[in-house]
């Protein structure tokens, strides 16, 4: 099963992708996902930000479920 990770702002600019697909490994956490992205997605290394799952911020120890909408949220600057 694959999942899609949405990328925004600096994450999108540096990777040149607004979405990346990743295989879902059972028990995978957001922290694991971040490490995997840093290894396999050029430009993602060193980007700061928080994870969001299903439109809410989530912690790095959250275990990803099939069907989750996942996004990487760099420091915000709206308003």
């Amino acid at each position, binding site marked *: 099963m694959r999942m899609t990770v949405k990328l925004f*702002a600096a994450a999108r600019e540096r990777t040149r992708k607004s979405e990346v697909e990743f295989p879902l490994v059972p028990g995978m956490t957001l922290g694991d996902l971040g490490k995997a992205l840093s290894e396999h997605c050029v430009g993602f290394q060193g980007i700061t930000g928080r994870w*969001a799952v299903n439109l809410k911020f989530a912690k790095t120890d959250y275990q990803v479920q099939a069907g989750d909408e996942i*996004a990487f*949220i760099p420091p*915000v*600057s709206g*308003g």
Partner: protein
Amino acid sequence: MFAVTESPIDVNALLRETATEDDGGISIFVGAVRRHSNGETVKALDYEAYADMAVQSFQEIAEEARTRWGVERMTIVHRVGKLFIGEIAVVVVAASPHRREAFQACHYAIDRVKEVSPIWKKEFVLEVSSV
């Protein structure tokens, strides 16, 4: 009403849509693009949003304001795309029977949007050259 839009924001329309006959105090915050120029270049702002999550954050912020001050009618609308100086990027409306709660809710909401809503701005530069 909670929205992310690419269109210019009509403040009067949002005021009419938010306030009811029960509301004696309506507080409106308008966030505009201010001049960031430094001589030869005029900077403007390019706003980006994770729209679904931003709209949900606006709803949650309004709920926080309702819990704290009892303000039941709020609108938060943020615009995205390339905005030039003077254009309106964000509007918050808080309507309440009395002004104290409306002021507080409005102030709170814009501060929270800036803190948690998944929206980003980036400067872009227009070169101004003399021919």
